[in-house]
C-alpha cells in the first residue's frame, strides 16, 4: 500500500530537467513547418491531378526531394510530439496510455523511414 501523498510522489519523481526539451522541440519543428507548409501548398497546386510521370518528374528535382524529406520528417516528428501530449492528457488508463505512446512512436519511425526511402528512390531514379 502506498501511503504517500500524491504531491510527494510528484515531487520525488518530478522533472528530471529535460521537461523543457519537449517544449522547445515542438516550437522548433513548428517554426520549420511554417516555411515548409508554404512550399507544400505550392507543391499541392502543382501535383493535384498530375499523372505518374509528372509526379516523378516533380519529385526527382533535388530541391523538391530535399524539401519533401524535410517536410515528412519534421511533420511526423511534430505530430508525434503533439500526439504524445494529447495521449498524456486524455488517456487515463495507464496500460492503454503506454500502449498508445509506443504505437505512435513505432508508427512515426516506420512511416518516416518508408517515406524517406521512397523519396530517395524516386530522386536517384533507381
Amino acid at each position, binding site marked *: 500500500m502506498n501511503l504517500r501523498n*500524491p504531491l510527494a510522489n510528484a515531487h520525488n519523481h518530478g522533472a528530471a530537467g529535460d521537461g523543457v526539451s519537449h517544449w522547445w522541440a515542438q516550437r522548433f519543428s513548428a517554426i520549420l513547418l511554417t516555411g515548409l507548409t508554404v512550399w507544400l501548398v505550392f507543391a499541392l497546386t502543382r501535383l493535384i491531378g498530375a499523372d*505518374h510521370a509528372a509526379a516523378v518528374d516533380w519529385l526527382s528535382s533535388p530541391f523538391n526531394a530535399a524539401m519533401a524529406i524535410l517536410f515528412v520528417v519534421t*511533420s511526423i516528428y511534430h505530430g508525434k510530439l503533439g500526439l504524445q501530449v494529447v495521449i498524456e492528457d486524455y488517456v487515463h488508463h495507464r496500460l492503454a496510455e503506454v500502449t498508445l505512446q509506443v504505437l505512435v512512436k513505432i508508427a512515426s519511425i516506420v*512511416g518516416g523511414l518508408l517515406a524517406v526511402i521512397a523519396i530517395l528512390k524516386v530522386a536517384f531514379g533507381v
Partner: protein
Amino acid sequence: MATDNRPLSPHLQVYRPQLTSVLSISHRLTGVLLSLGLIPVVLWTLAVASGPEAYGALMNILGSVPGLVLLAAWTFALFFHLLNGIRHLFWDAGWLLDLRGAYASGWIALVLALVLTIAVWGGLA
C-alpha cells in the same frame, strides 16, 4: 485514497463555449487529424516510388468524392493549425496575451484559414 473519480476542471457541461476555448480545443483536434493525414502523405511517396499502377490506384481514391471532401477538410485543418500555431508562437513570445489580442488573432486565424482553403481549391477548379 480515492483520487481516481474526482471531477476534473474545466467542467465542460456548465461552461459556455467561447471563441478562445473553442479554438484551443480545435488546435488539438486539427493536430490529431493532421497527424492521421500524414498517412496518405506517406502512401503518396510510396505510390510514386512503386510506379504508375499504384499511383493511379491512389489517385482514384483521392479523386473520388469522399477523397476530395477529406482533402478539402485536410487543407482547412492544415491552414487553421498553421495560423493558430503562429498565434501560439506569438503568445510564447509574450504578445497578444490580452483579451483583445486573443480574440482579434483568433478571428483572423479562423477567417484566413477559410479564405486560404477557398483560394487553393478555387484556383484549381
